[in-house]
């Protein structure tokens, strides 16, 4: 063949693409987590950095190892494994020992993602699979939450934990402002609602995540807990407290909106958001675990294929014109 002859490219239309790519989306999501991470470091000290570094290295590492082993192609540097690592760090207490992080990363990448066939194929959010796995398997480690600004490693319960064990009375004195800024015990990323909101607002602006899911998620929790607060304020905490404590914000803004495990259509996203909120509130109010966000999201993840199938968008031309 004549090497100097230049062959024209033949391809199907369209002859153009947006500049988006999978790794760009993943990396942007990772970048928007920086403010929340900064607050975590401020509150929990260098331990938060340690957890973050370990989860990131382990998650990317496991993805790399699995890419050698499985029969399909894995692009371990596309940012998705890194994002899983960062989000996993945000779901763990900063006091997590290294082996816990190792197991958590393996579960997230292996069991949460690659057994289903890799990126895009997993039914459940890998990070939350890992978190629920760890909560069930290691109840001791996952209930020791470091106290804010106590860089000495002393631990205590989260506000929700206090609520569950000691009742509403024990909560007097916690100010909502402190909670919103993140001055409470909790896992690395779940503490500062405002910075998470900041990051997510950018993602919503970039249309990487749908606003319906977090809005309805948080709204449903607020309404549901509000109803019970109005019925009996001595037994149930007020809805604003529920809104700003625990993993509700990171769950609603970053976990429930995960592209792979949330519905494709607007209608599906609305049902998904309300469902997540409902289950979170039910678990928080009546369940045996103090926090229900991760269970609720994993539960609703299971419904996503059904939502996709039975709540499609209206097809053009389905209405007969008179």
């Amino acid at each position, binding site marked *: 063949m004549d090497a100097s002859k230049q062959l024209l490219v033949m391809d*199907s239309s369209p002859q153009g693409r947006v500049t988006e790519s999978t790794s760009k989306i993943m990396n942007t999501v990772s970048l928007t987590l920086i403010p929340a991470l900064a607050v975590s470091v401020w509150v929990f000290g260098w331990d938060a950095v340690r957890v973050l570094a370990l989860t990131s290295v382990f998650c990317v590492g496991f993805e790399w190892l699995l890419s050698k082993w499985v029969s399909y192609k894995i692009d371990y540097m596309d940012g998705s494994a890194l994002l899983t690592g960062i989000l996993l760090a945000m779901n763990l207490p900063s006091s997590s020992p290294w082996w816990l992080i190792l197991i958590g990363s393996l579960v997230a990448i292996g069991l949460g993602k690659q057994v289903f066939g890799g990126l895009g194929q997993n039914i459940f959010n890998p990070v939350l699979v890992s978190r629920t796995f760890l909560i069930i398997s290691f109840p001791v480690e996952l209930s020791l939450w470091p106290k804010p600004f106590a860089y000495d490693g002393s631990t205590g319960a989260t506000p929700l934990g206090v609520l569950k064990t000691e009742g509403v009375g024990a909560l007097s004195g916690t100010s909502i402002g402190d909670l919103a800024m993140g001055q409470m015990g909790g896992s690395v990323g779940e503490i500062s609602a405002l910075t998470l909101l900041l990051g997510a607002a950018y993602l919503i602006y970039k249309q990487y995540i749908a606003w319906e899911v977090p809005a309805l998620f948080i709204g449903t929790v607020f309404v549901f807990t509000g109803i019970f607060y109005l019925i009996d304020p001595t037994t149930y905490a007020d809805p604003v407290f529920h809104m700003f404590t625990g993993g509700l914000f990171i769950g609603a803004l970053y976990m429930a909106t995960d592209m792979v495990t949330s519905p494709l259509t607007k209608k599906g996203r609305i049902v998904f958001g309300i469902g997540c909120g409902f289950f979170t509130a039910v678990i928080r109010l009546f369940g045996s675990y103090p926090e229900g966000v991760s269970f609720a999201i994993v539960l609703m993840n299971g419904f996503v294929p059904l939502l996709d199938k039975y709540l499609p968008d209206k097809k053009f031309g389905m209405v007969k014109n008179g």
Partner: protein
Amino acid sequence: MPDIVIAGLVLGGFALISSSGLLYASKKFYVYEDPRIEEVTELLPGANCGGCGFAGCSAYAEHVVKEGSLEDPCPVADSETMAKIGEVLGLQVESSEKMVASLMCHGTVQNSELMMDYEGIEDCWAAMLVADTTKACAFACLGLGSCVEACPFDAMHLENGIVVIDDEKCTGCGICIPTCPKNILHMRPYSKKVTVTCNNTDKGADARKACKVACIGCMKCEKVCEDDAIHVNNFLAKIDYNKCTNCEKCVEVCPTNSIQIRGQEVHVAADV
């Protein structure tokens, strides 16, 4: 021991009632199934390839038993198996020779120049939506492997931009034939190794320009053939396998190497 007697009587009576119910049901709801269907199914290769046009081997067995004839034989089974199936059905089966799929093209990228840098979906039909050919010859094998994908017996492979068929692995099921958008796969008897490896019906000069090993319709093969087995129609030679005796004279005489012996392909065209 009155207790055990009562228990025995109760259970026994219950058993009696139940069994009469079963008896009634077995008579009332009996469905006759020809036992030969199972026999035939067991004789069949069991690959469930679908080459016969039925949904798997048992569906084919049901068909042949119901029809009581072997007019459309299992394309994969050898003649011995078909004879056995014939025995089950009480039929005489003429032994038929194994057929294999054969590509009527030798337009490797060396012979027929690639005309484009195709970057769409790796499938011949998908490529046909973008362009009618990928090579200089409009009749050539596209070399994207729709048939390779479809072959259930791993008998087809891509080599140098065309499909190469392994006669030993090919069972002659014929699944690949309709998967070719260029319609250049056909069946030939296993023992007849001489094939025309071209499907270009353009005039000689145009065909030659498109591919170095194209059939130019020069009629030399037709003249040399003593068995009246090869004919040129529409500038393309075609072998009648009922008459071909594998004498290989046409192979020797072909000026463009467009008649080839399977298993001994000449890959580069002769300089004419």
